[in-house]
């Protein structure tokens, strides 16, 4: 092939932006000052931070925090799926109950809800199963046996989370094109199969990113379970040590380091989940890793024509 004549390429100087550079220098100086103070200010007591970072009580606190986060998210996700499907159905009672649940649990502070769950054994001394508004009772049990501090904390966090997640799930399910329902049902699949095999896997692409955010948010919300009171998780434990030793700042730093570390791990996990549920949408090879950038991915999603162009538009009613 004959070499084409090379055109005279443009080599122009970029527009000078001195203001941006002045700003950058100011920010850099402030940042360095902060780092300097972290190192030089003895009040941070980094030696104490190091001492308590792997303290058995702190490690146990980390474990309980992880357990609360995971447990509350599992309760939240199961509830969210149920509530979202109830709200999308045709039965007016199921829809009404779903709506009321979301209305109540999103409309009150999680702290208030946790205090409430802590007091539930006083509010209901015994839990009975029977027919409402009659004396008919099938069985009855002391409520303290059911609502331990851990159960109260998990229920409080999980029920609250379910209300938020159900809106995310609903937006995800709605984002899947109704042609997918039609194609699947035309093949003879039943409603449950269609949801499980066709709709939910596609909805996950919309559901996973905000659910990742909710999980990270939940990690920190677990610190509120002292309202129950549940006294084994990370924030409570580090505060207790800090107060007893009169060294609150280093113990706060210990807690912060653990929260940051777990959040970072969760972010990596979230990225893998997003890649998994994004398969088929971003032009990657079958079973292969993602090979193209975000804009191509978005183009492929639109090309597939199975989701609205902006599925996040109706996250909140």
């Amino acid at each position, binding site marked *: 092939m004959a070499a084409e004549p090379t055109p005279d390429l443009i080599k122009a100087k970029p527009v000078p932006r001195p203001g941006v550079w002045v700003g950058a220098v100011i920010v850099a100086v402030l940042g360095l000052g902060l780092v300097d103070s972290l190192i030089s200010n003895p009040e941070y007591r980094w030696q104490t931070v190091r001492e308590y970072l792997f303290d058995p009580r702190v490690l146990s606190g980390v474990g309980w925090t992880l357990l609360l986060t995971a447990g509350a998210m599992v309760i939240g996700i199961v509830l969210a799926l149920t509530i979202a499907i109830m709200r999308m159905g045709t039965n007016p009672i199921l829809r009404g109950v779903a709506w009321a649940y979301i209305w109540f649990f999103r409309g009150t502070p999680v702290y208030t809800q946790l205090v409430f769950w802590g007091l539930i054994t006083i509010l209901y001394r015994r839990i009975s199963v029977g027919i409402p508004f009659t004396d008919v009772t099938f069985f009855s049990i002391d409520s303290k046996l059911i609502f331990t501090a851990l159960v109260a904390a998990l229920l409080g966090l999980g029920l609250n989370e379910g209300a938020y997640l159900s809106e995310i799930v609903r937006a995800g399910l709605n984002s899947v*094109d109704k*042609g*997918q329902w*039609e*194609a*699947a*049902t*035309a*093949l*003879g*699949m*039943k*409603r449950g*199969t269609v949801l499980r*095999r*066709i709709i939910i*896997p*596609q909805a996950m692409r919309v559901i996973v990113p905000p659910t990742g955010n909710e999980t990270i948010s939940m990690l920190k919300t677990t610190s509120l379970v002292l309202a129950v009171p549940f006294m084994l998780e990370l924030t409570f434990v580090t505060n207790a040590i800090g107060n007893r030793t009169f060294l609150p700042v280093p113990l706060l730093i210990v807690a912060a380091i653990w929260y940051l570390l777990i959040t970072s791990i969760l972010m990596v996990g979230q990225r893998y989940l997003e890649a998994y*549920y994004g*398969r*088929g*949408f*971003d*032009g*990657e*090879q*079958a*079973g292969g890793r993602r090979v193209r950038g975000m804009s191509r991915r978005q183009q*492929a999603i639109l*090309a*597939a*024509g*199975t989701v609205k162009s902006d599925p996040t538009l109706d996250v909140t009613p």
Partner: protein
Amino acid sequence: MNSMTEHVSPPMVDVRGVHKFFGDLHVLKGIDLVVQRGEVCVVLGPSGSGKSTLIRCINEMEQISAGRLYVDGELMGLREEEKGGRTVLHRLKDAEISRQRSRIGMVFQRFNLFPHMTALQNVMEAPRQVKGVSKRDAEQRARDQLARVGMSDRAGHYPAQLSGGQQQRVAIARALAMDPELMLFDEPTSALDPELVGEVLGVMRQLAASGMTMIVVTHEVGFAREVADQVVFMDDGVVVERGTAHQVISNPQQARTRDFFGKVL
């Protein structure tokens, strides 16, 4: 049924006086249509004439408002019960409707492939989930169906990596994998770029030649001339004219039919 016809197998599709309302909108106004086994029926007509609604009623994507609809002699979507000399109608359960649908393949204007599955997985999905076919058998059958539509070399591709024509061919393979007795095509080439229409029509032609019973809603008059045993012209919710392609397209008797083909040909 009298004794004369008792041993004759029923027509594949028998539509009797079917009406369909969407709210106040009267979309189908008393449709009668018989499609025999192995026959290719092409439904032509202007947009909004109710032709898509008609085939969507046949596999119960829409519930009919009046009339009866039989596929292979079986009443669709309803159960008739004699009670004290009166006939009481019951709607069929979801599972029954799913079973009826599983015998009818449907191909959509916008393909509706499952985007999170490869072409092969798309074709395997329904036999696996609906018929409980083993993974190995389902894969073997899926590969056969993909070969039938000329898509063997794209088995591992996701729908987003395929052209419109290729996606539609996979969609046809997906429907065929259920061994349907009847195939419905709802404007299968209308969403395709002109240069991709031919490959899809080619697959449909080949399917017709293999003896499949087909009802095709389309704007492809050429395909109707070439393949159709029966051409039905619909307008405004009624069947205006029916007959062979030659009768309906080349030699229409009704003014509305003449007017339509005068514009499209």
